[in-house]
Every structure is written in C-alpha cells, then in structure tokens.
C-alpha cells in the first residue's frame, strides 16, 4: 500500500462510492486520505529523520514545519486536522461534502508531491 494507491482509491470512492459503504463513504474516504498522508509522511521521515517515524502527528507536523518548507507543512497540517475532523463522527455535524473531500485530497496530494521531491 503506497500513499499514491490510497489516493487513487480515494479518488475512485469520490467518483463512484461502493454501494456497500452506503452513507459512510465520506468518512471512509477521509480516513483513506488521512492514511495516505500519514504513510507519505512516514516514507518522508524514513529518509530524512527516522526517529520521527510513528511519533504523534502533532510532533511530526511541528517538526515538518521546521524540516520541510513552511507552505508544505502548513498544507499537511491543514489537511490532517481537516481530515481528522471529517473521518470522525460528530453528533451534530454532518459528514464532509464531496467538494470538501476533494479539497483535502488535493491538498494532501500537493503536500505529498512536494515531500517526495525533497
């Protein structure tokens, strides 16, 4: 499972959600995208700073702001918090819309692309 394949799966889910997912596909999609982001970061740490691999995301993201470029770190932070919100059930909040998910997906793709180039 690579971040890329996960993102492809998320894309597919957005275009035509599997019937079995019924109404929970937005949360599933958000979970898949967040997993892609986390895997992408993991791959990034493996070459850049192995000790950060598997650390709490807050720490990873704070370190990313210092070790990677600021804009990429900001994007990743934004995407991760947004996705975390979207993948959890909130009693009074409805699942994310296609447009929102699309946006997180795009931001995640962008930041992973930048990270893989470094």
């Amino acid at each position, binding site marked *: 499972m690579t971040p890329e394949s996960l993102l492809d799966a998320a894309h597919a889910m957005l275009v035509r959600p599997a019937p079995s997912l019924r109404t929970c596909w937005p949360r599933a999609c958000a979970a898949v995208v967040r997993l892609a982001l986390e895997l992408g970061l993991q791959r990034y740490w493996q070459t850049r700073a192995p000790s950060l691999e598997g650390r709490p995301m807050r720490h990873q993201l*704070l370190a990313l702001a210092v070790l990677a470029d600021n804009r990429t770190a900001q994007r990743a932070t934004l995407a991760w918090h947004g996705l975390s919100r979207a993948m959890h059930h909130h009693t009074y909040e409805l699942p994310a819309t296609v*447009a929102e998910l699309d946006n997180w997906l795009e931001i995640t793709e962008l930041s992973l692309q930048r990270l893989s180039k470094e």
Partner: protein
Amino acid sequence: MTTVDTLILERLDAANLPPMSVDLVVGALLGPAEFAGALGGAPPPRVQPATETIDEPQPTGTYLSAIEVTGFRGIGPSATLDLVPAPGLTIVTGRNGSGKSSFAEAAELALTSDNRRWSGRTQAWREGWRNLHSGEESRIRVSFGVAGHHRGAVVERHWSADAGLDDATAFLQLHGKPRQPVAELGWRGPLELYRPFLSYAELGGLLSGRPSEMHDALERILGLERLVELETMLKQARKEADDQRKVGAGLLPGLRTALAEHPDPRARAAELALTDLDALAMLAESGDDLHDVPLAVRQLGAMQLPVLDDVSAEIARLRGALDRIAALAGTPAEEARKIAVLLDSALAHQREHPGTACPVCKGRDLDAAWVDEAQLEYERLTLRAESLDAAHRLVRAGWQWLRAAVPQLPAADIDGMSAAREAWQRWTDVLTAENADEVAAAFDGLHAAAEPIRKTSQDLIAARRKAWQPLVVQISTYVTAAWASRRAAANHTALQKAITWLRGVGSEIRNRKLEPIAQEATEIWNLLRQQSNVELGSVRLAGTGPTRRVDLGVTIDGTAGAALGVMSQGELHSLALALFLPRATADQSPFRFLIIDDPVQSMDPAKVYGLAEVLARVARTRQVVVFTHDDRLPAALRHLGLPARIVTVNRLPKSEVVVDGDRDGDPALRYLGDARAIASDDEVEDSIRSTVVCNLVRDALEFTGQETVRIRDFRAGRPMADTEADLAKAKTLNEVMILTLGAGNGGSYQGALSRLDPKAREVVRAANNGAHGQYHGAVLHDLITDAERVIGKLRKP
C-alpha cells in the same frame, strides 16, 4: 475640488458634447451660482483639472484597548474585556449566553448610541437591555488607543437606576483633558461609512436588503456622493427646464383665444406675430392707441356743444334785431335810402334854383319851408336805413354764430343716432329757414339728443381702452414666458446630453474607484469560498435612480446567472463578509479596529479555514476582534498556525462574567507549548528535537517582540506605517530584538538583553543557532522555561 471633479474635468475635454452642455457641467462643478449663470447663458470660467494629486489626510487611527461593561444585557457585575490596541487578531469565544455578544453590543452602543440588533425592533426588544442581576447603575466604558495620544481616550455611557436605554449620559474624555460630548470625536460620518461593527444578523441583511442600499453604502465609501450630487443638480435643473419649456406653449392657447375674441386691431396684428416674440413685445408695449376706435365715435366722444347760456344769449340778440327790423317795417331800407337820395338831389337843386317850382311834379315851390321839411325828412330816412342795416347785420351774424356753434354730427354707428340725426336735421332746417322762434327748441332737442350718444361714445372708448389693457399684460407675460421657455428648451436639450454623458462617465469613474475594493472582495471571497463552486468575478455599481444596484459577477460552475438566488445562506454570509471587509478596512477610516460578531454560524467547516485566513490577513493591518460561540475558528487558526489571541468568556451564576486568556490563546505561549510537547518526546532524535524547539522559541520571541514594538510605538503616538516599515526591515531575530529593546547594535544590545534577564542572551543565542541545527545548550525544558520568563519581561511596559 474633489478627485471626482478632476476626473470629470479630464474627461470633459475629450467629450463629444455641445458647448452648452460643457458649460453646464463646468457650472455645476463650480457651484450653484455658476450653475445658475450657465443656465442663464453666461458661460462659466474655464477650469483646468488639478494636475497634482490631492493627498487625502490619513485620519487618526483608533484601536480598542478595553471594553468594560456593568449591568448591561448579559453582564451583571463589572466585567472587562482587555484588548491589545494594535493590529492583530483576537478571538473571543464563549458559549451562547456567556455574555460575549454583550461586549460587542456594548461597544457599538457606546459609540453609535444605537445597535443594529435593536434598531427598527419593537419596544420589547429595547426594554430588555438592562441586566437583571445588576445593582443600581449600568455603565459601558470603552477605552481607545488613539494614535498620537499617549494615554488614549475613553467613551463612557452611564445609566442611572431607573433610566431608559436612551436616557444615558455619555461623554468622551481624552486622557488629561476635560470631558467632552461624544460627538466631538467626529465619528458620526465615519461610523456610517466604515461601520466597524458587523453582526451575524447584519451580514445576512447586507445582501438581502434593498439593492439600492448596498449600492449607496459602497458609493459613499468610494467618495462618490459627489457624482450623485452633480447628477442631482443637473437633473433638478432638467426638471425645472422641462417644466419651464412647457410654460410658454401652455400660455399660448389662452392668449390665442383672448386675441381671437378681442376686437382690437392690434389683436389681429398680434395673432400674426405670435411666433415673432420681438414684434409681439413691441405690440404690447405700443401704449394707448385708439386708432382701433372709429373716427366718428372718437369725434362724437370729443364733440363739444355750445353752452346753453351762450346759445340763449345769442338767440335773445337775434330776436332783438329781428324785433327792430319788424318795427321798421314799411320803410324798407332801400326805398328810404332812394328817397333820401332823391331828397338830397332835390335839396341840391333847390340850393341852385331857390323858390322855383318842383321840377319833378311842377307843383309846389321849393321854398325855404320845403327845404326845412325836406331836410328833416332826409335825415329821418337816412337814420332809418342805417338802423335797419345794422339790425340785418345782427341777424345775419346771429344765424352765422348759431350755425358755427354746433358741429356737424359725426356719422358714428352707435345707438341713439337716429334721434340725434333728427335733432340735427331739425336744427339745420331751423337754421336754413332762419326760424328764430324755433331755434331755442331745436337747440334743446340737439342738446338732449347729443348727450346720450356722446356718453355712449365715451363709454365705448373707455371700454376699448380697458379691454386692451389685460391683453397687454397677457402678451407681456407670454413673451417673457416664451423667451424663458425657449431658453429652457435649449437648456433641456443641453442638460439631457450633459446628464447622459455624466452617467456614462460616472459609471466609468465609479467602477474605476470600486476596482480596488472589488478586487479585494474577490480575493477575500476566493479565500473564503474554499470548495464552493460559486465564483465571484467583477463587482460593479450599476443602474441609476431606483434601479441602482451592485452587480455581482457571480458564476456557478462557470455559468453566469442569477447567482444570489442559488447561493446558500452560508455562502451569502461569506460573500457579505467579503464585501464588508474592504469597506470596514478602508484607508480613510479612523477605525483601525473591527468587531465581528459570530461570523462562523452557518459556515461549512471548510469555509471556517478560509475565514481564518481572511481574518489573519486583515489582522496584519487592523485590530480584528471576533466573537464566536464555538471552537471551530480558534481551531482553524491553530491548525493553520496563524497568530491570534484567544480569550474565553464565561458566565457564572448571577450574570457574573469572567474573561480568561485561553489555554492556547496567546500565540507566544502556544509556540512554547508546542515546544514543550516536542521536547518531551524522547523517541525523537535529539538534534531534531532541539532544532524544532529552537524554531518554536524563536517564533515565540519574534511574535512577542513585534507585538511589543507595535503596542509601544502606538502608545507613543508613532504613525503605524513607520512602525510597520521598521518591522518589515527587521528580518532576523536579533534585528527584532534590537527594535524591541530600543538598543543599538553590538555591545549595547547585548547589555540590554542582560539587563532584561540574565538568561536572555543565552535564550536568544540558542534560538538563533539551534534553529539551524546547532544547539549546544542546556536541557531543552530549561530553555523553554527561560524563554517564557524572557517573554513575560519583554511584555512588561
């Protein structure tokens, strides 16, 4: 001369307008007197557009430094919301009913004496303003930082225990100065224009209100009322010209009827001259001329009959003479004269041949006795003849006088003429017959018949005179009005062209001036909209008069259309915010603060991120205070790493409201909190940990330094632009710290750091070196603790 005037004048030269329209536009630009002159046909002086640009003075910037509220709405005992009087973002969070909105409303009420939440509402809304748990008095006290004033100003509104909402006493006090009325601030206009308060309800109303209101609001900020003023001036003149140009034509039918009905020959002339106003004016002014009345009537009117006494005396003389003639009857004068001649000849004969018999009759001797007799007879006869001659002369003269005394009867065609003619005929007959007995009676008849017709004639003349006079007035009125109407018609055409031109130019100027604001609104919208498929293109002021509106070039998925209708409530709010923010942050506004009450409601989670970015962007140059009831906005700001102070408002029982700094509310402390989290993660490699920690410490120091500089400079009355320029130049941490400590380079800076805190030099050096991976200092946690203490000392004034 305003910038709008200059823009108009610049375009006027290239305008394809008739000279009259150009004169009218220039006149209107110069002022009412010149405009009236231009309307009257006097060309105004030619004005050159001002070439140098006029720098509009920057108003004195004002920031909020505290809002203290007692016994008002949700707040019972006194509670204070302290703010940093400088650019930056402050988020005030609190659950519904915590009293946070009471702060926003209090600030608005103190400044504007009104509140949009209540204005236009029923009494029931307005009555609930006083807090149920408050003591005697209610009070709002808003402290301001005013650029250039060391200690700022205070606006206070105070209600006694039983006062109504509008019965407050309010005053303004600049520090160290006596109290003044709030109006002294001169904020009435700017508060309308740049309204630094915006509530959720108001955001909703901004787009759903009447289109003309939004149009006017935008127009006022752009300083474009001048365009409206000019257009109103021209339109008013056009309306007057329109009314005036019809006045002449309106008077014409009446005049025509009056002329047609009028017997005066001048009326005929006037009818022919109706379009020739000069000739008409001449006719009206030609004065009292009676040639329209028939000569005979005029003669009759002027006719003089002899006075009765004169006539009677003349008749008496005539009769006397006639009586003498009658008395001398039987001795006609001729015969007497002939006999006298005969006797005279006989007497001469007798003197030559005395005592001889009469040669004529051969009878009696012509002796002395005969001579005496004949002499006597001769004298008698001569006397008689002379007397008779005299009497005859008298009679002839008498008749002559009588004939001459009575004028001919003029052949006027008026009532009573037949009787007069008879009387005159009789008079003539009597005179012809030289019937002295009838003369007196005939004259009486004459007199009796003449009087009525003379009066009739005179009346007729008077009536004519009287009948013409109103026409003189009517014609003059018409002539004056017709001239004015011709002028007005010409003006109307010129005004029409001027107005059409001004509208075209006006919409160009409007949109040119609007462009920066529109662009900003579009940028803000693009930040806000996030995933919305609604795209905001151009923002244009369109239409005139009642149809004026703001055209929002909104497209949905690339399709233009009646987009406002299909936008969601949240999107409408965001759009309203996009349009509101440029207005409230205009350079000309004295308010460097902005209070936004609950903009997050009905926003999608994603839009909240957009909002956070927008607010942080505005907060670079403005003090932005946002009240919100949930954590979405603070969370978004934290996630985006945007600097914002966050305070929470909590309401304890009995309306006791407390304001606390949020755990993560202070950006500097938040950076240090993050640093602690990383420092504690033993799994992470030391070099990475120290690099991240040092970066965060540096961020915390830089934030604190910049904030300190802003506040200090602002309190010192330094222009904000200068401060910002300094801060922009200070790129490294050392530069920021030098600025913050007000120290010079080198030794004095190091000394200033040491005086601030024994560890300050170490902390700054660690932050500088460690941020680049070269940390060789103490335990990270100690560094963070030292940094926190240094930051606290930096903040102390």
